[in-house]
């Protein structure tokens, strides 16, 4: 085991940043689940809303990707 404390901090930080992805997972699941719940109640209106579904998923997912990016920056750029 060798290396300095800065590197250790970077690795721990990268690991912690990955917990942010759990939040994104919750968000995406929430969007998709609510879409399905709504779609089953009114299936005729569901087809026109798939674009909205994907926009919602994209916005929720972007924040998870940000935490992934922070992890990558800590691993490779710090």
């Amino acid at each position, binding site marked *: 085991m060798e290396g300095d404390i800065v590197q250790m901090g970077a690795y721990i930080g990268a690991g912690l940043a990955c917990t942010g992805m759990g939040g994104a997972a919750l968000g995406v699941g929430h969007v998709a689940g609510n879409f399905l719940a709504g779609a089953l109640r009114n299936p005729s209106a569901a087809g026109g809303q798939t*674009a909205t579904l*994907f*926009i919602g*998923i*994209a*916005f929720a*997912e*972007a924040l998870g*990707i*940000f935490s*992934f*990016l922070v992890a*990558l920056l800590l*691993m*490779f750029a710090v």
Partner: protein
Amino acid sequence: MATEAQGAAEGGLVFHPMDQFMVKPLFGDGAVGIFTLTNVTFWMALTVLAIFGLLVLGTSGRATIPTRTQSIAELAYDFIRKMVEDVAGKDGLVFFPYIMTLFLFILFANILGLLPMAFTTTSHIAVTAVLAMLVFLTVTIVGFVKNGAGFLGLFWVSSAPLPLRPILALIEVISYFVRPVSHSIRLAGNMMAGHAVIKVFAAFAPMIVISTGIGLVVTPLSILAISTIYALEVLVACIQAYVFTILTCVYLKDALHPHH
């Protein structure tokens, strides 16, 4: 950052999962300059050639009853045209060629990047940031040209109570300028993450050679995981191209009709 020799000596990964994203010159081992032919430019050229093959060669017959290639090209055209019309409105159709170009380039770059040994051009933030900045600049310029100072009404939510409006304006301004960042990082991050995950499992796959005991379990599992994630990646490649273009349409709608 684990180097190759260090990883092999400790019994870890023999190759680094991020190695696949390295930009290398096509010929020789020289430094990469602005005009060097690299694997990025090679796969970008292949992307453009593939689009050319589908759209120009595929539809050159102009058959009334389309061939399979021609109907794929027509489906893509109809799909994007309908999306622009639905999301950005009738006056957004001026930008249809631009949005069609964006969609096809990203879709083909994503799908070509899934070929084994291929290089995913869209996994680099440098590539997607240029695409996203162009969208951002287009939207901003179009917004000011079409509406003049009225474009600033986008930030002034007139349906909200008056004391709340300055705070909302601040939030709207921040979210407006974060758009190119999230727009580009979403695409690059999704592509990069999926390919890195495949590579991580690929590093576990030859475990059966290293230690047969644990390898009998790990190797089939990781090969199964690679296949499953690959299938997911095909889906993600298409969805991310779709998401990038539909967000472009949403931003264009803001520029053309800025009032809430």
